[in-house]
C-alpha cells in the first residue's frame, strides 16, 4: 500500500513539472544565467533585480548593475532609460526593482568580453526606499558600558606604568 502511494506521488510530481504555464519569456535568476552562460549566450532573456550602487554614465549609454539576491550583473542601457531610475541600493537604501529584457552575452565583444545584458526594454516594477538605521537600545547600552570599561582600563594602565617607572 505504502509503495503504491509513493509511486503515485512520484508520478504526480513528475507530471506536474510538465504542466509549465506558457509564458512569453520567463524571468531567469541571474545566477542561473551565469552558470548556464553558454546556453543563454546571445539569447533574449528577462531578469529582475535591484539597481545597486549608481549609474555609470558612458555618454549616450550607461551601465546599471542589478542584484536579484542570487547574483549581480551589468545592464547596458540608454542614458535616458537610466535616468528614470530613482533609487539605488546601498547601506541606507533599497534600490528600484528593474525588470530588464534584453540580449545576454557571455563574452560581449563590444565590451571586452564582459558578461552583460544589452537592454531592449526596461520596467521599474517596484520603487526603492530609504532603510531605517534604527539602533537597538541593548546595543547602545552595551557600547556605553564597554566604552567606559575601556577608558577605566586605559587609566589603570597609565597609572601602573607611572608607578613602575624608576
Amino acid at each position, binding site marked *: 500500500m505504502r509503495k503504491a502511494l509513493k509511486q503515485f506521488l512520484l508520478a504526480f510530481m513528475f507530471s506536474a513539472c510538465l504542466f509549465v504555464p506558457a509564458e512569453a519569456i520567463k524571468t531567469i535568476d541571474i*545566477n542561473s544565467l*551565469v*552558470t548556464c*552562460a*553558454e546556453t543563454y549566450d546571445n539569447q533574449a532573456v528577462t531578469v529582475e533585480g535591484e539597481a*545597486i*550602487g*549608481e*549609474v*555609470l*554614465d*558612458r555618454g549616450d549609454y*550607461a*551601465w546599471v*548593475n542589478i*542584484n536579484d539576491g542570487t*547574483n*549581480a*550583473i*551589468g545592464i547596458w542601457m540608454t542614458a535616458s532609460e537610466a535616468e528614470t531610475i530613482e533609487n539605488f*541600493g*546601498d*547601506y*541606507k537604501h*533599497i534600490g528600484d526593482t528593474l525588470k530588464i529584457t534584453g540580449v545576454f552575452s*557571455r*563574452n560581449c*565583444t563590444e*565590451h*571586452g*568580453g*564582459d*558578461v*552583460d545584458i544589452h537592454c531592449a526594454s526596461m520596467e521599474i516594477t517596484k520603487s526603492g526606499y530609504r532603510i531605517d*538605521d*534604527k*539602533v537597538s537600545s541593548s*546595543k*547602545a547600552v*552595551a*557600547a556605553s558600558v*564597554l*566604552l567606559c*570599561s*575601556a577608558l577605566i*582600563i*586605559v587609566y*589603570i*594602565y597609565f597609572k*601602573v*606604568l607611572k608607578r*613602575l617607572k624608576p
Partner: protein
Amino acid sequence: MTNTQVRFPSFHIISYYTGYIIFGIAVLMGIPLITSLLMAEWNPALDFVISMSVSVIIGLLMMLLGRRTRTDELQVDWKFGFIIAALSWIMLMFLCSIPYLLSGHTKSLLDGCFDVMSGFTTTGLVLTQNLDHLSTGLNMWRHMLTFIGGQGMVVLALSFLGKHIGGAYKIYCGEGKDIKLVPNVKYTARIIWKISVIYLFTGTLALWICGMVIGLSPLSAFLHGLYIFESAWSTGGFAPNTQNMMYYHSFAYEVMTIVFFVLGSPNFGLHYAIWQGKKKEMIKNVEVQSFFITSFLLSALAVLKLSQSGVYTNAVSCFRRIVYNVLSAHTTTGFGNVYAAQFANEWGDFGILVMVIAMLIGGSACSTAGGFKGLRVSIVFKGIISDVKKILSPERSIRVIKYHHIKDNVLDDGTVRASALVIVCYVVLFAITTLLGTFYGYPLAESAFEAASVTGNVGLSIGVTGAAAPALLKVQYILAMYLGRLEFLSVFALFGFVIGGIKKHA
C-alpha cells in the same frame, strides 16, 4: 617586589607583545568608526565602539599582565618572536570579526573569522553576504584589514615602538619577512610604511580621477579608489561590491589595478633599492626575472588554449578576461572580472591548471604576495641546474653559483634546502586542502583551484567558497590561509610551544 626573579618569563613576554599588537590594531578601529560617524551610519558606528572597546581592554590587560617584560627588560628569544606573531594573528582574527558579526552580514562566527583571516592574509575570498548593502564603515574596515595585513600587523606595531627592544627583529621574522632594509628593524618597518603610504596617496588619487571619468560620483570614486588601491597594493582582492572588478565595466580601471597589484607584489627591498636610485635592480633582480618569465609563459598558454577553444575571441577580450585573471592569480591578488562559475564551466581543465600553477608559484618573498614565492622557485631551479652541471663538469673544479636579489648572493646547499623545504610544506598543504574538497564531493579541478587560492592567499574562487560550504572545509581554508601567509614556521613554533607547555605541566 624585591624579588627580581620573574616566574614564567615566557608568559610575560608573549602576553606583553601580543597585547601591544592587539592594542595597536584596536586603535586603528577608530578609522572605520569615524567613517561611519561621518556617513551618519549609527549602527556600524556603535559596532566599532564595541569592537574597539573590547580590543583595547584585552590588549591593555595583556600588556599589564606582562608588564615585567618592560620593567625587567626580559630577553626575547627567537621562539617568542614566532609565537607572538602567530598568537596575535589568531586573537586578532576573533577581535576584528566583531564588527562583521554585529552587522548581521555574516551567517556565523566562523564566516566572520574567515573573512577577517582572508583580509589579514590578503587572500580575498569572501563569505560576507550582501556586499552591495554593506555600510561604508564596514567596507572601510574590510579593505583596511587587507592593507594592514599585507604590510603586517607586527610591522605596523614595530614602527611605533618607543624603546628599542632586542626582540623586535625576531617578532618581525615571525610574520614571514626577513628583509632588513636598514640595520634597525624599527626603521625598516617605518620605511616599509613610508613607501606604502606614498603609494596609497598616489594610487588613491589616480583611481579617484579614473573613477570619476568612468561615471562614479566624486564621493564613490574616492571611496572606491581608496578601497581598490588598498586591495591592489596589498594584493588582497577585496572589492566593495558583489561583482568585484566587474562592477566597473572599465578597461582603464582594470589596467590601473594591474599596475598597482603588479607593483604591490614585489619585495619591499626592491622598492627601497629603486627609490634610492638603483634603477638597475628592476632588471637584475632574480624575482623580477622569474616573474617576467613565468607570467608571460602562463599567460601565453592560457590565451592560446582559450582563444583556440573559442572562449574569448578578440585580443581585447583575451587580455581583459584571460591575462588579467592570470596576473591576478600569479601576483596572488584575487581581483576577478569573470564569474566563479565561468572558471568552472568555460575555462576547461587546461585553463584551470594554468591558474593553479600561477597561484602556487605566487609573488615575491617578503612582500604582500603569497605562494611558494618566485625567489624560492628560482633558487630551487638554479639549484637543480647547478647539480646537473656538477655532475657534468670535471671532478676537481669548484663552481660557485650566484643569484642576484638586491645584492649578489651565493647559492649554497643550505639556501637551496631551505627553499625546497618550504615549497614542500606548501605542496603538502595544497594537497591536503584539495583532498578535503574532493572528500566533500567537489570535482577535482574545482577543489584544486580553490585549494591553490587559499594556500597561495590568492582569492579567486571557482565557486567552492560560499556560505553553504561545509564548516570543516571553511576551517581548513582558514588554516591554510594562515599557514600560507605566515610561512609555516611561526605557526609550528606556536603549536610546539603549546604542546611543550602542556607536556611540562601534565
